[in-house]
């Protein structure tokens, strides 16, 4: 946006600078035209003045030797003035043809001056004197004719030039009117465009904020660019974070409920159950109890033991134990768990199908973790995988060190049916289960334990079928560091 504003302002400045330059140029052109016209008229006046001066000198010449003759100084000054006028003409710019005509005029003027000088200086008999005067007069008349011819020619040109110049000045006037009218219009349009460019993204952000306030945590801002795009990205990040925090809060509330329930059960059920269990054990040891009744009593004891396990799970989930960290070789632990699982748990968990275990262990550093909790998590994931493959399949266990060297990745995959997309977000919620006899606490406890290690657990369906659970654990948890 900053760049757009800068570009916009630059464009604005350029447009108005160009308009300003054009206006100045136009005014300058118009004034130049007027200057030219004035100069042309001045030249015309100069020619008329020159003609008058020649006539004055001719008059002086005619009056020479008469009682009305002017003084020598006056005549001399008149001739000098005539010469000065023609010299003034050379101060202006002329076309080559004009210069040629002017040179001819100057030459004729000089000839006239020389002839006049002769008349003024010669002392001879009357005939010679008259001849000199006559010669000078004829040269003067020729000069007058030459100037008249030039005036006639330039007068016609002057009229034409005046018409053309006035036409150009008229056009200039209309262009200026147009610019004066267009200026505010262009300003308004450009201003509107810039304001729209600023207000539209702000409106989108305000609307999105209102939706978020309305509880729509899944709403995201889209379609904004530049700085507003960055604000939108931050907004979206904030919305995602808010949703996550909300979910965590919900889970915490559930934990509180489960904790209270577990505590209640512990107090209300655990002790009677222990009594029943002991009573059943004692009773089954009595000699008068028939063997078939003993089996029933034993069954009751087993059920009670299972109920105790369930209670323990409740308690663990509601009041999780703080992990006791120690160096753990994750690959070794996975191996041990798999071996243990194959020997003692597979029969109960799996169906009739054959399970193939694929292990791809990368080289991992020793991490600080609670081995008991970690093993429980792994076991839980392996059992879920086996449950997902009742007719057999492939259990994949893969580990690697992330590129940053600070996190290890553990993947547990199966080749079962995977998890329905509409349920995949709920698998870590407490009491959510798809198994007929499931408690819905296994994955919830697993995530709780992993998060206590500053790690993360997630699930996704594999493209080829089945689910993939991914655990990320820090090599050195913050809890351990503390």
């Amino acid at each position, binding site marked *: 946006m900053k760049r757009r504003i800068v570009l916009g302002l630059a464009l604005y400045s350029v447009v108005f600078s160009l308009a300003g330059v054009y206006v100045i140029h136009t005014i300058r052109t118009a004034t130049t035209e007027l200057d030219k016209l004035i100069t042309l008229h001045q030249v015309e006046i100069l020619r008329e003045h020159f003609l008058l001066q020649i006539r004055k000198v001719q008059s002086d010449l005619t009056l020479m030797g008469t009682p009305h003759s002017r003084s*020598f*100084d006056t005549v*001399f000054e008149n*001739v*000098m003035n005539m*010469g000065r006028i023609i010299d003034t003409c050379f101060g202006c710019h002329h076309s080559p043809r004009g210069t040629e005509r002017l040179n001819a005029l100057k030459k004729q003027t000089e000839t006239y*001056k*020389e002839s*006049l*000088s*002769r008349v*003024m*200086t*010669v*002392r*001879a*008999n009357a005939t*010679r004197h008259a001849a000199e005067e006559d010669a000078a007069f004829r040269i003067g008349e020729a000069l007058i004719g030459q100037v008249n011819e030039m005036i006639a020619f330039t007068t016609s040109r002057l009229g034409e030039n005046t018409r053309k110049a006035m036409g150009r000045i008229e056009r200039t006037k209309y262009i200026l009117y147009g610019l004066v009218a267009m200026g505010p219009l262009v300003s308004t349009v450009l201003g509107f465009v810039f304001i729209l460019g600023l207000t539209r993204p702000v409106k989108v952000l305000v609307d999105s904020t209102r939706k978020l306030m309305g509880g729509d945590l899944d709403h995201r801002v889209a379609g904004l660019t530049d700085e507003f795009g960055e604000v939108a990205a931050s907004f979206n990040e904030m919305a995602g974070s808010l949703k996550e925090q909300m979910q965590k809060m919900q889970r915490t509330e559930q934990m509180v409920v489960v904790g209270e329930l577990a505590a209640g059960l512990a107090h209300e059920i655990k002790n009677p159950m222990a009594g029943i269990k002991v009573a059943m054990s004692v009773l089954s040891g009595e000699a008068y109890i028939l063997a078939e009744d003993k089996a029933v009593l034993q069954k009751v004891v087993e059920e009670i033991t299972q109920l105790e396990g369930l209670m323990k799970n409740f308690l663990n989930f509601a009041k999780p134990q703080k992990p006791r960290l120690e160096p753990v070789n994750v690959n070794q632990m996975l191996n041990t768990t798999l071996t243990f699982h194959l020997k003692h748990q597979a029969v109960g968990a799996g169906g009739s199908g054959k399970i193939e275990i694929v292990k791809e262990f990368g080289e991992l550093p020793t991490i600080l973790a609670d081995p008991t909790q970690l093993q429980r998590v792994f076991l839980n994931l392996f059992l879920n995988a086996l449950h997902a493959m009742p007719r057999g399949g492939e259990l994949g266990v893969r580990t690697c060190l992330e590129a940053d060297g600070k996190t290890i990745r553990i993947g547990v995959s199966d080749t079962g049916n995977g998890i329905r997309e509409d349920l995949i977000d709920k698998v870590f919620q407490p009491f959510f289960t798809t198994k007929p006899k499931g408690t819905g606490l296994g994955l919830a406890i697993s995530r709780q334990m992993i998060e206590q290690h500053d790690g993360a657990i997630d699930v996704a369906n594999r493209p080829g079928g089945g689910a993939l659970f991914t655990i990320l654990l820090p090599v050195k948890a913050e809890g351990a560091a503390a």
Partner: protein
Amino acid sequence: MRKRWIVSILAALCLPFLAACSPKDPPPPAKKPSVEKLLIGLIPEQNLFKQMERYEPLAEYLFRKTGAKVSLKILPRYGNIIENFRSSGLDGAFFGSFTYALARAKVGVEVLARPVALDNTSTYHGLIFVRKDRGIRTARDMKGKRFAFVDKATTAGYLLPLDYFRDHGIPDHNDYLKEAYFTGTHEDAVFDVLNGKADIGAAKNTVFQRLANADPRIMKELIVLERSPDVPENAIALRKDIDVSLRNRLKESLLTMHLDPDGKRVLERFGALRFIETTDEDYAVVVKFAEHNRLNLATYDYKND
């Protein structure tokens, strides 16, 4: 530091106004002295208007250097220069050699300086010339011909022919010639002979040569029959009652102008290398020439008929 700078600048800007507000009134400006003026006459050595144009830059230069306003007055006749000292209040003039000799005798003027021409000469001489095709080679051939003099107050344009005729036993040329008239300028005397308006002419060699440089016909079609002794080139002279300081400044400006770039440019336009000091002794040759022709300078009638 920046603040101090601003205060200093403001103080500097306000200083003239503060000074203007001072209760002590400034001393009244000194009365502008009246400008010294000089009216200098010019003889019609050439076309009147060209002559004026030639001397105008020199007058302006002298004004710049001396502070005295130098005005020029062109005169239609050589002899007028003496009349104008009496009637028009001339302060000085550029005199021809003969007019200076006359003016010194009749008016009382003091010569200051004269130019050195581009060929490094500061003198000129008179020439008598004819068209080659007219067959005039001797004084005898001149009988019944038309003679174009310049002016009765010129060495080259009158004194020389007078001397020539006297030496050839012709006491009155007016009776000997068909027509004798005065062109008024050396230039016109040359042109009149060249163009056949006159058969014989007399003029100064410097003008003759300058015209010959511009028009090749002159050397091709004219022939020189006689020349006068060398006399000083036209020199500036002032009235004797002119302020000594002004006279000295004028003389100094002229004598040093070739050392000044501005003066050098003016000299180039004028057609001279420099000005040199000139005294009455330089005119001894003119006086002698006049005496040889039995002319009394104090009583000589210089007016053309």
